[in-house]
């Protein structure tokens, strides 16, 4: 428990620090990238569904898997498109 808390605290710091110097121009891509990352709930959804015992659980789990997948693939693809735009700019 305390280890998880420690992990949480450290992750908060890493999250803060990593992002704190971002240039304004990257705000939106960064937001979108982070958005894709929280799609990791897909892992949770798979685990839940993989162990579902009732039908309700299964339905909820499958819905979660579907939604999380949309989040993940959509998120990474959109972010990449945005960044392509940047690459296109001269210099």
């Amino acid at each position, binding site marked *: 428990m305390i280890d998880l808390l420690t992990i949480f605290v450290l992750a908060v710091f890493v999250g803060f620090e990593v992002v704190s110097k971002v240039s304004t121009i990257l705000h939106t891509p960064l937001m979108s990238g982070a958005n894709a*990352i929280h799609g990791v709930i897909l892992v949770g959804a798979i685990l839940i569904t993989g162990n579902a015992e009732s039908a309700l659980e299964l339905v909820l789990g499958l819905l979660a898997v579907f939604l999380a997948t949309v*989040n993940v693939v959509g998120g990474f693809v959109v972010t990449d498109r945005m960044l392509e735009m940047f690459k296109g700019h001269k210099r």
Partner: protein
Amino acid sequence: MTVQLVYLVAALCFILALKGLSTPRYARAGNLIGAFGMAIAVVTAYVHGAVHNGLLILVAMALGVVVGIPAARSVKMTAIPQMVALFNGVGGAAAALVALAEFLAVPTSSVLFRVATVLTVLIGSVSFSGSVVTFLKLQELMTSRPVVLPAGQVVSVGVAVVSVVLAVAVSVFPSGFLLVLLALAGLALGVLFVLPVGGADVPIAISLLNAFTGLAVAASGYVLANTLLIVAGTLVGASGTILTRLMAQAMGRPLTNILFGAFTAPALVAVAGEQRTVRSGTVEDVAILLGYAHSVVVVPGYGLAVAQAQHAARELVHLLETRGVSVSYGIHPVAGRMPGHMNVLLAEADVPYEQLKELDDINPGITSVDVALVVGANDVVNPGARDEPSSPIYGMPIFDVDRARAVVFMKRSMRPGFAGVDNTLLYNDKTTLLFGDAKDSLTKLLAALKQL
């Protein structure tokens, strides 16, 4: 153990992804690393955790891919923010569903577990419904104006209180029904939270909801005792919060205005009717506007002289040129207070004569100028001189900077220029005001540009 190690590697990938995404140079690589981390995590989870229902899961994932990729591919560049909002929303929903399902599976575990569940469900639902509303707003499926409901504040506070009560209740007495009620309350809260947020602030709200989803995922990590979810969710939660603050700062908006959008009416939103509003930007905004422009015209005026900012202007132009921006100076015949005032100053700063352009050089191509940077000039760019026969300065030729793609105005206040005439350009949508002494502003701008 191996599974855990893969998760650890995935978490590492996510950290590196965020790190990459915060520098222009590595942003793309960062995104790819993130995707890689996600891939190995998902595969591992599937291989190791999809004990039952493996096929169904695959189908659900395939469906997700089929929906997600084309949506992300086909969306217009301008519609990306609402797309991000939508993806964020479904992520939140997924988190809430996961917690709900786990709760149904193991309803009678410890209080801590229930607290985590409650948090996941509540935050997940807020995030979902809030995101959907922002999507509707940005997609203009509903008004993008702030919607202030009658008694909106009272309702919001009410729903918030109900949510808290429900949350505490579920934590103490595990009950599926109450949990569903809580989810509904969360959905309402999300809607109420976003409704009063107006046009320009919506992206900030999205960013905040994004951070919320991160927290929901982290909480679900506790529910599932899964370190990866905890780390990744926390990362997103923390970085999303900081990012939200940065975005609010960059737009010059106090974050509280947005956070408590439901309770206080936003401060600077364009209100229809009589009172005209101006948009004042930050040095960073302007730096980006300039740094990523292709062509810039600098229009200096008497304020440049008063501030003795000629050297600073020259440096700025020089820096922009080294970045590949094409820049020229628009020298108006009566800029300043004596004939040739600008010439004298710019010659002193050693600006090459070739960069000095006149009305006839600039105006014909002005519509393809990305940014007109007006440095302490006023009358010489006042569209009233062109459009309003009643104006005392009607008939003076001006630089038509109102026809450029964007205008940045550097002056100290809203006071008019020599002619004492109000300038409608200050209230134009395209215009960003940078208040302060021109030399100060230019110096700061220079520093900001170097950071880009």
